[in-house]
């Protein structure tokens, strides 16, 4: 099992990748996931997070098998 991390829109261009897998982690928060896969780089302002396609706060605890997504404010419609 693993955690899938995804990036969208401008954030995908900033981090330079669209997705990655994080193996054998548990009980990390969304913030800690970001730190782990982005070498301690601070989260850009205004970034939103979703776990399993639901908006979450950054202290939300991620389980093995979850999909975590980071993206800028939405601009559809």
């Amino acid at each position: 099992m693993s955690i899938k991390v995804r990036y969208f829109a401008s954030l995908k261009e900033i981090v330079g990748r669209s997705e990655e897998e994080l193996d054998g982690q548990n009980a990390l928060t969304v913030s800690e996931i970001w730190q782990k896969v982005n070498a301690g780089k601070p989260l850009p302002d205004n970034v939103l997070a979703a776990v399993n396609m639901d908006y979450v706060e950054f202290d939300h605890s991620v389980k093995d098998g979850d999909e975590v997504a980071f993206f800028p404010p939405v601009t559809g419609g």
Partner: protein
Amino acid sequence: MIKICQDAFDPWHEVDSYQRSAVAMAGKYGATGVFVGTMRDFNEGDDVDSMILEHYPGMTEKYLEKIVADAMRRWQVLDTLVLHRVGAIESNQPIVLVAVWSARRGDAFDACRAIMEALKTKAPFWKKEYLADGRARWVESNSDGYI
């Protein structure tokens, strides 16, 4: 009904054909509220040639379903149609369509607007603009609808 459209769509044709197919509500709806968002050829003072609309497949549909369900709980609505374009879009093409059918006009107006506002703040779509001067940029945030 909720649809994510890869190709250009004609909003008036979509509303017309959906309404014709929804025979159960014929005679029951007294009000239809429709909003169409269309790509302009300008934004923030610059000429815009085209746009790419990125989205988060799966989460997009999930949030559009949620948004419509919320509106249907809150107002007396008979049916709704929500279409949103993704991919490469040119100026003057429709981006989004929200249509609401109800017995009375208050519900159609309020639900249509609430769905649009929720879509603008919650549905995971992102616009990248390609300007006439060759630059490209991500739109950074949606406005309150007046600026």
